[in-house]
């Protein structure tokens, strides 16, 4: 019974969706079967694979660039109080600027294309990751630092052998959250700035002939991929070497 | 005619299923506690004494046997008997006053305020009424939890290694505080501890438990009046007796 609960609730929702779709006046909103057919159509036309790859390509580049730059920068800022004092206000001001508000500038600098979208994703992940890495270092218990120094570790060794591992649990949480944000941004960016990817699929399917079955099919794919990305990051949190950081 | 016991534990056993096998934690425990008595349950860590206390408090159901309080079978937790936790269970989102008044929601505002004031004073937290637990020391938090329990005027208190996390000086102070409070408020107290000195200093009787499955090895009467002299021959003799029962040699 317990195991069936998730399935039965999902099935019930699908049925409600089906019935709702058939009671509407406009006839534009698709039922689950039409969405499934839409997915198959996209698959057959080869668009599904192409757009999924396009979206993932942008996320991978933008996010990876953000990770390799933001984490070292954040660790350094967390370590050197002065650096933090100097740069933190600027970071705090830039952070709440919706990454999508950069779209005009991104297009101005990089033109309509992959690089513009990658830049937006980079921005969306870079700022929160830097702030998180900085805070993670600040939250390393001083006793651990003292213990490290006691064993005669030099500053660089201390950073690598004590601070990074101690900050890692918090960092992983931030990595997971910012990957979610990156996925959210790529879709939005593709709706405005480029002409491929799952976000573009959604806008295009609507504009070119009100194909709402393809719109919802695109949304389902976005949900599924987002879920897989999140589950992957959750696996990281479950690693034994990190588990201590998340309480019981 | 002797009065009926306040707490009566009859043939209590507890088994936990753990993947595949069944672990027996408690095995046929029989114990009677008189009204107003302070009984220490003494045993090594992990022997199942906390499980016993949780069953008596009504938080766990025993596999077999029964617990009677005032000749009524315990079916669940009850505000007439309050559990004071091993890890400090004060609510961090409430002030000292809020914590002490937590269980008094059935009373009118005036009576509530009066009771809160009384018990804050009794446990020596006057002046800290509006402080939050994180602003208090460990000993103060423990006293706050005792005050929260006493405020609802329970007949029985269950204390699960309440002073275990405190430093040894604070622990001594807290024990004499507990005895002082006990003189002011006659309560039946079941006190779980792994500290032999603690049991000799506090208890009327000490129930010595064996390791898993826990059974009662022996019940030792502490025939000393309060205040107890910690260097008297009798104290040392009782202490040695309990050390022997626990199975530890006299010398390290």
């Amino acid at each position: 019974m317990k195991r069936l609960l998730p399935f039965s609730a999902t099935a019930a929702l699908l049925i409600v969706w089906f019935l709702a779709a058939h009671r509407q006046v406009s006839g534009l909103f698709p039922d689950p079967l039409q969405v499934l057919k839409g997915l198959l159509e996209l698959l057959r036309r080869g668009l599904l694979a192409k757009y999924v790859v396009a979206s993932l390509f942008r996320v991978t580049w933008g996010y990876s660039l953000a990770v390799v730059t933001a984490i070292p920068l954040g660790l350094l800022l967390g370590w050197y109080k002065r650096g933090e004092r100097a740069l933190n206000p600027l970071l705090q001001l830039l952070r709440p600027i919706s990454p999508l508000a950069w779209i005009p500038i991104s297009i101005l600098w990089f033109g309509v294309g992959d690089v513009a979208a990658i830049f937006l994703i980079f921005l969306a992940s870079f700022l929160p990751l830097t702030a998180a890495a900085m805070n993670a270092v600040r939250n390393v218990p001083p006793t651990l630092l003292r213990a490290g120094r006691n064993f005669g570790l030099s500053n660089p060794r201390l950073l690598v052998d004590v601070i990074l591992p101690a900050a890692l649990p918090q960092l992983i949480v931030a990595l997971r959250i910012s990957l979610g944000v990156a996925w959210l941004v790529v879709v939005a960016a593709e709706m405005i700035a480029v002409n491929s990817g799952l976000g573009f699929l959604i806008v295009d399917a609507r504009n070119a002939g009100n194909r709402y079955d393809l719109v919802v099919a695109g949304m389902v794919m976005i949900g599924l991929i987002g879920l897989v990305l999140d589950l992957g990051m959750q696996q990281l949190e479950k690693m034994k070497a990190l588990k201590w950081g998340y309480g019981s | 005619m002797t009065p009926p016991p306040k707490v009566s534990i009859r043939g209590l056993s507890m088994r936990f299923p753990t993947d595949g096998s069944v672990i027996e934690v408690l095995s046929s425990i029989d114990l009677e506690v008189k009204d107003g008595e302070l009984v220490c349950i003494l045993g090594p860590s992990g022997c199942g004494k906390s499980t016993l206390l949780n069953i008596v408090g009504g938080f766990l159901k025993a596999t077999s046997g029964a617990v009677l309080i005032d000749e009524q079978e315990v079916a669940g937790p009850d505000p007439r008997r309050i559990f004071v936790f091993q890890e400090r269970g004060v609510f961090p989102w409430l002030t000292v006053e809020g914590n002490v008044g937590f269980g008094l929601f059935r009373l009118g505002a005036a009576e509530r305020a009066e009771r809160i004031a009384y018990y804050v004073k009794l446990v020596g937290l006057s002046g800290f009424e509006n402080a939050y637990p994180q602003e208090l020391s460990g000993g103060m938090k423990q006293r706050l939890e005792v005050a929260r329990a006493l405020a609802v005027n329970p007949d029985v208190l269950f204390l699960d290694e309440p002073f275990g996390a405190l430093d040894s000086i604070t622990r001594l102070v807290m024990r004499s505080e507990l005895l002082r409070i006990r003189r002011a408020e006659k309560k039946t107290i079941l006190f779980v501890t792994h500290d032999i000195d603690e049991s000799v200093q506090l208890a009327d009787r000490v129930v010595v438990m064996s390791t898993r499955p826990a059974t009662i090895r022996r019940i030792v009467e502490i025939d000393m009046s309060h205040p107890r002299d910690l260097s008297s021959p009798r104290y040392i003799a009782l202490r040695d007796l309990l050390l022997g029962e626990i199975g530890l040699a006299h010398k390290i």
Partner: protein
Amino acid sequence: MPTRSDVERVLLPLGTAALAIVAWSLAVRLTHTTVFPSPLKVAAGLRELAARGVLWRYTGDSLRRVATGYSLALVLGVPAGLALGWIPALASAFNPVIQMARPISPLAWMPLAILWFGVSEAAPDLLIFLGAFFPIVVASMNGVRSVPAMYLQAGRNFGLSTPRLLARVVFPAALPQILVGLRIALGIAWLVVVAAEMIAVDSGLGYLIIDSRNAGKRYDLVVAGMLLIGAIGLVLDVVARRLERLRSVRWGFQGETA
């Protein structure tokens, strides 16, 4: 007497800000760009927006949309999350749907929002609602689930009925985590409103940015709009963090000086 570190706390950020502005104007001058505005031009753009009255109107529009969508998410999301956290059967029934819907970019709902509500105020409100709703639900659910069993035991021991237990123990114990969720959701709402206004409506700060670009490449107004978005977002974040400093929830943030 201000100490040396106090002086640094004020001077260092001011110094960096000044440096950033100088670097920005130098970059504009050296590249001889005619499109990208200098800081002075942006300041002039801000004054122009204020003079035309759009500054306040658009800011008000964006804030009103966030307020509507976010309040709705708050009012529905917190109780839903509490219920899901408290009743395991409910959580296992709805978890697949929630996990699936959560990563769908709120912007991806745009076509459906327009289909259901037309190009109107309701479309951005729905997107903001969706963007804020899921983080709030998940934070509230996790908050309830991680309430220490000891607190529940103590509450029951004092004879609390289930509704009382929820109100007096579960909710306050989960509140720190809920507040973090609320702050994150507010940030997302602010992110979504800007994007929604770029696509769906013709007012608000998001519209200001896209319109300034499309109508005559006024990049000075684009950057002015971005700065406004940043400043307002910062204020929202600071206000949300203030809530986390209240004495009755501060216990939940030990070791988190962020």
